[in-house]
């Protein structure tokens, strides 16, 4: 009688440019918030927040895409990001690059290479994980894939730990961190621009892909109603695999940028970073890519803001507090649909 799949409430992807007064209001709010943040944090921290936010956004998108399509919180996703950092650093080191590369052409080629490589490798890792650990449990009670995901997370962490030990590992910051743009007193690293540009570029590319291509349509329809999509001829398994590939590839890209920006990584980076990125995804509205991006930036600002005010140690607690508050009071997040009513 009534419509089915009330459980798969992935809201349709809404872009900020989506239409009329509402979008303008949203835009105005965002600009105002950015302006406030700029004033409060100062330009340097503002850029830091933007950069960190971009990284979180890239990881958050992976969470939100996977949740939107199979309603699974991929606990291992944060660790995919972490592995991405290690993959990129090992590529760079094996190619012989341990420090800044100042030759522009070489740098560009190197970056393109590292990004492509890491993204493809991590994409494949994501597909492998899905195939081996999640797909067999697609129809099992919810607890099972959740627990499996945690298991995979630990497996990834410990494999990395086996190779790299429990200590911090240095990642070659091939993009010269000293290259800055000077505006008055303020020095803004070009690397930050680069990272934000890469992140935004990838996200726009993703939106175009999802919005305009056949595969993207398949992904959207599977997320909305898997059975109907299957009946329409969508290859569900392949669609899900592609979703994992893209999400993990983005996490890989985030890994590369993380290494470039911070120069260090550790086997347990994925756990907290993953949780924060998931918070970002929830904050923005789970299932909504734009929301994930938005959430990522917000979380980046929260974290840098906390540090700027001297509350670095409390940073994670604040972020997780945000998670709890969002889930309790507005589980649909900022851009999600308001979830039903309480009887």
């Amino acid at each position: 009688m009534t419509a089915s799949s009330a459980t798969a409430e992935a809201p349709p992807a809404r872009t900020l440019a989506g239409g009329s007064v509402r979008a303008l209001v949203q835009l105005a709010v965002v600009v105002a918030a950015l302006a406030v943040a700029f004033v409060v944090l100062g330009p340097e921290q503002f850029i830091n927040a933007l950069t960190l936010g971009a990284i979180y956004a890239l990881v958050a998108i992976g969470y939100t895409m996977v949740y939107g399509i199979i309603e699974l919180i991929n606990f291992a996703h944060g660790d995919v990001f972490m592995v991405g950092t290690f993959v990129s650093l090992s590529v760079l080191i094996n190619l012989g690059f341990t420090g800044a590369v100042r030759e522009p052409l070489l740098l560009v080629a190197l970056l393109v290479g590292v990004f492509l490589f890491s993204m493809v490798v991590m994409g494949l890792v994501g597909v492998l994980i899905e195939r081996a650990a999640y797909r067999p449990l697609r129809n099992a009670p919810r607890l099972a894939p959740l627990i499996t995901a945690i298991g995979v997370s630990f497996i990834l962490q410990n494999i990395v730990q086996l190779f790299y030990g429990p200590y911090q590992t240095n990642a070659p910051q091939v993009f010269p961190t000293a290259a800055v743009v000077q505006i008055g007193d303020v020095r803004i690293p070009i690397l930050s621009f680069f990272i934000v540009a890469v992140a935004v570029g990838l996200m726009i590319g993703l939106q175009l892909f999802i919005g305009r291509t056949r595969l993207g349509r398949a992904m959207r329809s599977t997320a909305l109603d898997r059975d109907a999509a299957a009946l329409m001829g969508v290859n569900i398994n392949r669609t899900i695999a592609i979703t994992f590939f893209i999400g993990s590839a983005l996490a890989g890209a985030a890994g590369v940028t993380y290494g470039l920006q911070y120069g260090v990584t550790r086997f347990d980076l994925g756990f907290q970073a993953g949780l924060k990125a998931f918070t970002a995804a929830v904050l923005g509205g789970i299932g909504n890519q734009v929301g994930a991006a938005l959430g990522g930036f917000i979380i980046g600002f929260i974290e840098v803001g906390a540090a700027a005010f001297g509350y670095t140690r409390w940073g994670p607690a604040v972020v997780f507090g945000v998670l709890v508050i969002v889930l309790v009071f507005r589980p649909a997040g900022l851009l999600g649909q308001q979830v039903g009513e309480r009887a």
Partner: protein
Amino acid sequence: MSEARDILVAERVTRRFGGLVAVNEVDFTIPEGAIVSLIGPNGAGKTTFFNVLLGIIDPTSGRVEFDGRAMIARPRRVGVESLVWVAPSVLVVLVGLALQATGVLGGAAIALTAVAAIGLLMGTLLLAIVRPLWYQNLLLRFGIFRSARPNDMVQAGVARTFQNIRLFKNMTAVENVLIGMHTQMRASLADGFLSTPRARREEDVSDRRAQEILTLVGLHGIGNELAKNLPYGDQRRLEIARALASGPKLLLLDEPAAGMNPKETQDLMKLISRLRTDLGLTVLLIEHDMKVVMGISDRVTVLDAGRKIAEGTPEEVRRDPRVIEAYLGTPAA
């Protein structure tokens, strides 16, 4: 029959979903001891109305009274409830400040006040969550009203079955019925912990009662079968048994005859009639199978596009031109 009081009174129940009016000013009463049916084409709003009656969703306007008590309506003055939560703690804090100002008790006053305030706050929040009946009545005094939730409706005496059978598939038939009996049992947490004689006695009594109920619906002897292993017709009966276990006054059956063959349908009709005559139950049926509707209903109500378009005896409704029009043809006889 005109002497019978109305066990359920729904007044001008309306439910909107955004721009869509799913249920539109529906008046609906159920006389005690009657078997009434609610029919209508697909999309007529029967399920939504049903859900409102059961406390699953709130009506946009209108009210539902059950057994003389107001159970369902649009929440009223809910914001005030937050004040009720905070009031005791605020009071305590004020008292503590006063004590401190006047120098009585000194430093300990602050600690005591803090502990008391926090404790009270937690207590009231817990009350708000658990919502025992006396608390709801207290709120009513302040004009604060929240609709009954599904489990409150069961407590009040309304039980239901599901359109797509929702038995606890991995539990036995008896266990399913015992769940139905949940509200009738008095064993508390302490009884559970301590395995008191009272608790054990209650379990034994309940076990026997569950068997009795199963026999009543014609499922004698299959008590230890897993629900998922039962044939379809038996599963439907088991769901009814489970609903009966809560000792309801009103039984809401959601398409109980769906998927049944003619023989099973006949047996079902006999069972429902027996429930009314032997147990004094009032029954509300939502049903598409006109044999059942016309066969056992005292009164039939027809919804279409959210509005009540006809109500009366089965014969009256069958001949009503508006009903025929709504269905685009005569109902299957």
